[in-house]
């Protein structure tokens, strides 16, 4: 009773102080600052809850599998179920947490700013900058056409524009987070470096081929009115709100694929014998890298679901380079994006773009198979 009264008293005190504060905070700038403080508080609280949840997955999965369901440790079914119960919450938590962080970082970038940074840059430096900006600039393949036109019209060289267009989908946040969650940060970093290298090299080759005339003619005739939206700096609370919105959107889009992928992976984990994959996807099978790239092109929508399967395949003897090449083809050479880009690119340029990028991916696949 006593402590309850005390708590009530403290609450009233806080309420009065808060009320007094809102009275003082009359200017919009002060209000924005108060909103930012509140947003940071919420995000910090959520981060603590996230950490506690992440820490408790492993013991919880173990306890559920062998304690509650009562499966035999070491049995095929037991291993599969434990793998599934551990990986699903782990990957979904990682995805939500890291996509939130990445989206917050991305709120500092915009296609408009990237265009301004790239305008007037020459080949080489331009390709490097374009590929790097492709990683951090928010990009949706549905906006590929206006972005392409806007870049070309601003005088950004074709090859530099392509470096951006290759890097943006290839080194995407879902792929990076999944790689980090399933293989560790080294493989995620390796993937990022390889993706950047392919984007830079492919863009430079396309630039050298001087394929400007294979861009649809209407693109060169557009004279835009210059009425672009003024990019204003959002406040922290707006950044967090935007990041939260895109996290919900991305996780909402991929969670089912992730669960299905992990279920298939769990099945492979428990039942496919060790080394079974070595013959078809191992490093001795030279044809497996190009075959993996060919297979990856039509598989766009399932990028998130493909990765847990790949992890299981690697555990059973498939080579890492082959698996990474497959993944890159899945995300970078997607059929829907090609169809969208066909609106501004003539077939010859599309085929060149696919060809050069595919060759780059195959080369990276072989390189990794040789190195690791």
């Amino acid at each position, binding site marked *: 009773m006593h402590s309850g009264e005390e708590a009530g008293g403290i609450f009233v005190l806080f309420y009065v102080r808060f009320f007094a504060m809102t009275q003082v905070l009359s200017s919009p700038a002060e209000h924005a600052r108060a909103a930012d403080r509140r947003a940071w508080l919420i995000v910090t609280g959520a981060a603590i809850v996230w950490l506690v949840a992440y820490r408790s997955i492993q013991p919880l999965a173990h306890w559920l599998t062998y304690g509650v369901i009562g499966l035999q440790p070491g049995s095929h079914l037991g291993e599969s179920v434990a793998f599934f119960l551990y990986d699903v919450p782990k990957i979904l938590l990682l995805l939500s947490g890291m996509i939130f962080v990445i989206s917050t970082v991305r709120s500092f970038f*915009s*296609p*408009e700013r990237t*265009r301004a940074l790239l305008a007037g840059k020459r080949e080489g430096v331009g390709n490097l900058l374009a590929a790097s900006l492709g990683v951090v600039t*928010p990009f*949706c393949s*549905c*906006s590929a*056409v*206006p*972005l392409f*036109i*806007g*870049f070309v*019209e601003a005088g950004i060289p074709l090859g530099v524009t392509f470096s951006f267009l290759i890097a943006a989908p290839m080194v995407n946040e879902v792929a990076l987070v999944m790689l980090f969650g399933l293989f560790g940060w080294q493989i995620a970093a390796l993937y990022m470096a390889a993706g950047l290298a392919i984007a830079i090299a492919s863009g430079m080759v396309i630039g050298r081929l001087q394929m400007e005339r294979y861009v649809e003619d*209407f693109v060169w*005739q*557009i004279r*835009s*009115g*210059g*009425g*672009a*939206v003024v990019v204003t700096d959002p406040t922290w609370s707006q950044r967090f709100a*935007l990041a939260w919105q895109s996290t919900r959107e991305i996780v909402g889009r991929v969670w089912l694929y992730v669960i299905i992928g992990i279920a298939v992976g769990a099945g492979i984990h428990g039942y496919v014998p060790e080394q079974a994959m070595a013959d078809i996807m191992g490093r001795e099978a030279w044809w497996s890298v190009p075959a993996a790239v060919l297979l990856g092109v039509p598989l766009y929508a399932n990028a998130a679901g493909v990765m847990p399967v790949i992890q299981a395949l690697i555990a059973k003897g498939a080579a890492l380079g082959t698996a990474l090449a497959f993944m890159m083809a899945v995300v970078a050479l997607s059929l829907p994006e090609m169809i969208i880009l066909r*609106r*501004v690119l003539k077939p010859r340029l599309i085929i060149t773009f696919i060809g050069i990028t595919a060759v780059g991916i195959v080369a990276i696949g072989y390189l990794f198979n040789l190195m690791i």
Partner: protein
Amino acid sequence: MVSVKILGSGCANCKRLEAVVAKVIAERGIDAAIEKVTDYAHMMRWNILQTPGLVINDTLVSAGRIPSESEITAWLTQH
């Protein structure tokens, strides 16, 4: 009458933006006509880099995002 243009070629967010704008117009009883611009050459008049774009009385007010209902209401009533 307010003229509203939605720039974008049938992407999911373009449809969502159109629905939000239509809702605001209906709720507030604003006298406005919505037009969809799906032709890229046409929509580049407003120099956008991301779809969907929202144009009110020939002025681009947002691109690449779905603004909140209150933002849209403000734009529609200001013009």
